[in-house]
């Protein structure tokens, strides 16, 4: 397997070429919140607005035809990226949150009734908790929660016990954004299918660092965002099995999602357009296509190997620091390191690290139940990506020591 050319990769990201706070190089370790954007993505978006800014699917003129072709080419890139069998299964949404909410409103309201059960886990992002609570409160469905172990893994025995003929959906995060845990989604899906339940996979945190193949997984729905994949904000993807999507009612009504409209009757468009009402985020879709091209060019297997190496190095470095406790040490995890320092609040840690040029996230990471599970109000989170180096990890460790000096 090829190794990453880090010099070239770092040069691809203009945001890394700047200094912060008195000429300190930027050490960007907040990739689980959002990744930086390579020049190719920025140029693609700029080119769209400069040279082919037009609406899609309706124009008869040159620019509209070009924009439409690029938009649909991105859909094909997404299809191939997650190995879906058809572009009909690829719905563009505003992001992972919008995709999950679409399933909750359209599939959920159409297929569920009071007493039906949905299983989620204790490590879900709020975006995979709240949409189901809204359904629970309006429809009387029941939410069941898979507990997590002390090292931050799913308790799979408990999951098996929760499954029953009442289970209609399992909605599960692939990689935990606050713990880094990689969940055994294939095993989860197979067990759910044996009970006749559908499975939604929240892949927001996994598509940037491992091969995600929806046919191999046999998931029923899968959601991810562009901006955690080196692409633009405001764009995401819902994958759904075609028969499920065909059976679901439209979520939003409007232009582009119809074949014909009279005041008496509207005939809806076919997939995927049925779920894409209104002018979409065209530049976002085209930018997402460029981001996928960028990732494919480097190769997900090489990315995974690089991040695994960084994870081991960072785990060793941080574990060696006195007064630091890692939260989330599952055997199978990505390069996300949540940690707390004795008697120093994460908000103070984050502020002081920033002064050293080191950007991390401090807070609950939209996973308050995880914080409650581990008995902390918040954690510090360093999340590493393709352009990060062992030097970045060293800078983090040195800056953490400086924080501890301030508070001694």
């Amino acid at each position, binding site marked *: 397997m090829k190794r990453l050319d880090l010099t070239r990769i770092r040069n691809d990201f203009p945001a890394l070429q700047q200094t912060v706070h008195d000429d300190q190089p930027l050490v960007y370790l907040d990739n689980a919140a959002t990744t930086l954007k390579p020049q190719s993505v920025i140029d693609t978006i700029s080119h769209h607005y400069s040279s082919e800014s037009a609406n899609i699917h309706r124009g008869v003129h040159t620019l509209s035809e070009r924009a439409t072709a690029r938009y649909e080419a991105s859909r094909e890139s997404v299809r191939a990226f997650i190995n879906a069998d058809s572009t009909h299964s690829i719905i563009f949404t505003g992001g992972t949150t919008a995709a999950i909410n679409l399933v909750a409103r359209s599939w959920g309201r159409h297929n569920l009734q009071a007493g039906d059960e949905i299983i989620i886990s204790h490590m879900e992002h709020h975006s995979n908790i709240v949409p189901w609570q809204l359904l629970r409160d309006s429809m009387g469905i029941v939410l069941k929660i898979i507990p997590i172990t002390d090292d931050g893994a799913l308790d799979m025995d408990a999951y098996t016990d929760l499954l029953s003929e009442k289970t209609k959906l399992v909605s599960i995060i692939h990689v935990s954004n606050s713990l880094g845990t990689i969940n055994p989604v294939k095993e989860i899906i197979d067990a759910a299918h044996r009970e006749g339940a559908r499975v939604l996979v929240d892949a927001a945190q996994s598509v940037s660092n491992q091969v995600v193949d929806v046919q191999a997984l046999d998931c029923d729905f899968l959601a991810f965002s562009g901006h955690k994949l080196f692409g633009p904000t405001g764009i995401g993807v819902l994958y759904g099995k075609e028969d499920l999507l065909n059976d679901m009612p439209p979520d939003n009504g409007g232009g582009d999602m119809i074949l014909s409209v009279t005041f008496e009757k509207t005939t809806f468009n076919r997939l995927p357009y049925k779920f894409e009402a209104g002018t979409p985020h065209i530049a976002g879709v085209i930018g997402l296509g460029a981001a996928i091209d960028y990732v494919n060019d480097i190769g997900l297997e090489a990315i995974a190997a690089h991040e695994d190496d960084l994870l081991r190095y960072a785990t060793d470095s941080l574990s060696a620091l006195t007064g630091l406790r890692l939260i989330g040490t599952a055997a199978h995890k990505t390069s996300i390191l949540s940690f707390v320092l004795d008697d120093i609040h994460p908000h103070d840690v984050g502020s002081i690290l920033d002064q050293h040029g080191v950007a991390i996230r401090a807070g609950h990471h939209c996973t308050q139940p995880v914080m409650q599970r581990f008995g902390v109000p918040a954690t510090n989170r360093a999340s590493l990506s393709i352009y990060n180096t062992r030097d970045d990890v060293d800078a983090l460790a040195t800056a953490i020591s400086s924080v501890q000096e301030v*508070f001694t």
Partner: protein
Amino acid sequence: MSMTDELYQQVILEHNRNPKNFGTLDPCSHSAEGFNPVCGDHYTVSLNLSEDATIAEVNFDGTGCAISKASASMMTQALIGLDVLAAKKLFSEFHNLVTGKLDPDTEEHSLGKLTAFSGIWKYPARVKCAGLCWHTLNSALSGGDTVCTE
């Protein structure tokens, strides 16, 4: 002065380490809760007024960063003996201080040691930390129960 030196002055670090008037008063005549949902800070401010309507005792309880905890601790020390009107005036002065609207070197004020927070207006992400317990106090004095920074 670096941000670290400016924000984390010795007096602030000392109050963070050994907060004054920490814990909940029970019974109390006034109390309120304050949340900062962004960083998870959560405090309760409780107080008792004496017969002459001055603050006889005031405590805070909860968890948060060094800035919010030190601010709360120093607030409780500054409040004892003040009547409600004077407490609200101090709240107003502190609010103006941390939002950069009051220059403690050139304008009249009764902030005392609280001027340790005079540089915080330059760090917008931390202004809410310094103000959390003060807003909670204001809510308690005004008969409210919960405040939220967002």
